[in-house]
């Protein structure tokens, strides 16, 4: 800042004005419920590691009703310990240049008010799709955002999708509602996926499998599952098939059905060559971290076109009716199998931490400030 002019200076009647240098928005606070399970927690853990080197990072933990009674996710605990980032539990006030609230859907059962949030810009990362494939809301989006709005004082507030599909749902939701002040970020707050890469097998066999949390939304109908995992396959391994195991009549003999967590994911992936992943047609993954994990492990992934869109050429898109034919073609051409998987693995770099930090930093800069400062 320039020094003030003296009173005797002839130029004193014309004050010298100067624009303050642009301030680097370095203070970032992640707001999240650290108890949520699954791939999202692992992604946010990777995000903490990545962002802690680029920002003055703090983490605020919410205690939402949705995850009441659960423990802090171990991935997050490890990331916090490794980076030395403090995590404050439900403080009265959250103040930062940038506040990032992960997964607004975790507020869907919330009745208690959030901490007061004061920031230049707020990003709400929309991990859970706003809309289901049929266009119906996946959760009470307006209710969850309203809960945030009530506690939020921010120059600008953005909804940051995690994938193309997720973005299209947020955009549709925004366009269908009244202007609530939320803007759609022009970049994706993608999941960081930095798995070690394993080479694909040179001799693929018809060993199929899938892995997910056991929710009903993760599985198509039994008929579809039987089509995708038929008795003629050499091996069918289903990890996270709790919903089927709860009703033993629903599990055919040729399936190796395991409960969620019953086998570690690496071992599971070691038992298959094709990761056949279709969710319930009334629901869709917002990102699909399990797919990246499978590709990294050297597996060929077959999934529905909507889910496949996030991964481009890295997966085989299928309407579900030609899974056997796809597998048969790759089995007949093992070289093609290897080439496809290697190419898929190469494309995963865009989900790496470096790419992520670049995207976020640029996005924040583009999001600007409310006003230039004249001193």
């Amino acid at each position: 800042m320039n020094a003030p002019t003296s009173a005797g200076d002839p130029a004193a009647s014309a004050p010298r004005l100067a624009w303050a240098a642009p301030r680097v928005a370095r203070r970032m606070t992640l707001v999240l419920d650290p108890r949520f399970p699954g791939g999202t927690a692992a992604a946010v853990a990777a995000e903490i590691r990545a962002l802690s080197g680029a920002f003055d990072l703090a983490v605020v933990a919410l205690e939402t009703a949705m995850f009441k009674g659960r423990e802090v996710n171990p991935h997050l605990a490890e990331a916090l310990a490794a980076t030395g980032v403090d995590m404050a539990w439900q403080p009265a006030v959250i103040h930062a240049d940038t506040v990032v609230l992960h997964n607004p859907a975790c507020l869907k059962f919330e009745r208690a008010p959030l901490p007061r949030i004061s920031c230049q810009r707020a990003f709400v990362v929309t991990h859970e799709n706003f809309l289901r494939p049929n266009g119906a809301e996946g959760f009470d989006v307006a209710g969850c955002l309203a809960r945030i709005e009530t506690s939020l004082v921010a120059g600008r507030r953005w909804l940051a999708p995690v994938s193309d599909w997720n973005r299209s749902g947020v955009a549709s939701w925004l366009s269908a509602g009244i202007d609530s002040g939320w803007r759609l970020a022009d970049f994706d707050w993608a999941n960081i996926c930095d798995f070690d890469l394993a080479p694909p097998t040179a001799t693929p066999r018809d060993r199929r499998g899938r892995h997910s949390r056991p929710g009903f939304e993760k599985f198509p109908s039994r008929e579809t599952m039987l089509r995708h995992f038929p008795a003629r396959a050499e091996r069918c391994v289903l990890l996270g098939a709790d919903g089927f195991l709860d009703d033993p009549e629903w599990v055919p003999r040729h399936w190796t059905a395991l409960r969620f967590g019953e086998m570690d994911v690496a071992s599971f992936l070691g038992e298959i060559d094709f990761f056949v992943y279709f969710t319930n047609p009334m629901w869709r993954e917002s990102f699909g971290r399990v797919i990246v994990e499978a590709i990294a492990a050297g597996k060929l992934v077959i999934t529905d076109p909507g889910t496949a869109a996030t991964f481009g050429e890295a997966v085989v898109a299928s309407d579900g009716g030609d899974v056997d034919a796809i597998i048969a073609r790759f089995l007949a051409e093992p070289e093609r199998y290897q080439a496809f998987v290697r190419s898929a693995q190469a494309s995963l770099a865009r989900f790496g931490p470096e790419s992520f930090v670049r995207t976020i930093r640029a996005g924040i800069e583009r999001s600007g400030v409310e006003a230039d400062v004249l001193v």
Partner: protein
Amino acid sequence: MFWCETGGETPRDYDALALFVAQLAAAGAPAVVDSRGVPDGLSRYVQFELAPYLREGPPEGRDTVVVVGAHRLTDGRLARLRRLAGPSGRRVVALGAFETRQAVTGVKARLSYVFGQDPVTRESGEEGGDWPDFGVAPRVDTAARPRLLLLAPDLGERAQASALMALALSPRLDVAVLTDGKSKQEWQAAHGAEIPFYQFAEATPASLAARIDICVAFGSFAQNPRARALIANLALGGATLIDATPGHAGARASDAFVRGPLDLLALGPFISAEILPNLRRIAERVRGSRFAAARDAGSLLRLLEAPARPSRRRSEPVGGRILFNPTNGVGLGHAQRCVLVAGALASAPEPPVFAAFPSCSRLIKAHGFDVMPLIGRSGQHTQSHENDLANYVRLRALARDARTLVFDGGYVFDSVYRVILERRLRGVWIRRGLWQASQDNSVALDREKVFDRVIVPGEAFEELNETYSRGDHVRLVGPIVQRLTLDPARRADLRARLAERFGLPFERLVVTLLGAGVAADRGAQLQALCGMMERRTDVLHLILVWPTAVLQPVWLGWSRSRVVKTHSAGVLAAAADFCVGAAGYNFFHETLYNRVPAVFVPQTGSYMDDQRARARAAHDRGLAGLAEPSALMVLEREVGRFLDGGAAEQARTRLAALELPAPGVERAARLIEEVSNGPAALERDPVADYPA
């Protein structure tokens, strides 16, 4: 069809589901429940309520799934619901108390994962129940007097209890009480079953509503779905609804209620002065109330896209058929009594039909009646009432076009009780008396309230007739007994044929009917009898058993004794010089009325009638011999006296001179016709009735 399901998994959820299905079915919608989704361990009431609606899935293409209490939808239920999903999506309607937008959104999403499409949802409204309250106007019954129901009165105070008893004496009203199980039990333990008490789950609100003209609500019913359903039914039917709750909360919230006194003491005069003269006007006002309009089932049925209800509203059962339902005890006494009475009914376009246990089928068919088999108890059943569940479904189906159900038995089964209520049948209970003093018949007497008439077949000796309940509906008739006339020539012919059949010429024919050993082991007595006969050459000893009896080795291998399986024991007994038998109602009275000397060996099982008293009455009059079941020496002496001591001849002489009450078969038949056809039956064939 509407496959009804609950979102929760607790017993309370299934209780609510049972209520919903019953109400929906009463509204004319084809409601069913997937039997595979119903867990074990539900209360007996809920099992019975659900039983008629259980179906094996899967649903057909256009069927709809209705989930009540969907706001409590658990993953466990969701997993079960998968069985109802069709390959190409299934229409689902989710009803519940969705307090937040998230609750609705969440339920829609979760159900869509199972059924392939989003459900239609409907909020249950301010009552916060598992579905929007709705009612069904009951079919109008014609009753001699207005029927008053007191809903959840507090009878803890002596003054209120006294007031209820005074009110129940009113000649202008029939009074009943609907309350919780504990209150009912306490009342009946202290005051007996003369005032009909219902507990909430023992009858569906639709069945109950048909039996009520005036309802006085003493307790808040807002939290009780069954009471709410009953009130809704009553409102739609135009019953008088009186609010006697503190602060008249019901009348404040609803325009269907009139304010009434909070005290039972003041209720009688209030109803006499304010209600009874205005019943018709009040009915119009209630039917036209906003409360009734809001509970019209039409709104829900439209949401469900239910087919149009049949326009015909029955005020009477369609058919006029009389359905007989004898239970089987140790023997076939109940069935035998029923066929005698059924045979005495005036011929009707639809002949009587029977529902009976298989052991009775041949007997009933032999009398020319059709019979639907019921299922007996079995050790294979995990619950003691499991057979009755199946019987309930069968009886309910058979009673679809019946007008009257005639039950003969000591214990009124749930199946019988519920079918009378739910099918709106006229109930007749042929209730043989002479219960043992130690027996607890409280359940049976409690259930007497659903019978329009109790016919008590009298005992031959007046001192054996006891009164177990009172009222105009209880009628004593003469002994229901099969009379046989076997003239000397036919008797001699029959005896000759028996001698020829068995290759045993005889001078003395002794017939033994001690039963097949179900109630008690008769082995020692039969062995003693067969041993006695074995020492003689002038006797043919016939051991008579029902055709369904399992033969015991001890009965066989005797040279002077033969086992005969027969339904025609009476004929053989009439041909005998004397009989040895238990003192069951039928056998006892057949020996008296057919003048056959007998030595009685009473059955003394605690669940049986007081055969000892019956046998003693005959013995003390010098009409019969008597031996206690364990007194084998006495039995030998008595049989010896009858064989060689002239006692049989003496008894026969005394029996010939004995004056007995007129048999009651015809009278019982006329009383049933009167109930079934109305008083016009009396005009055709008057019956002199004697209130017990």
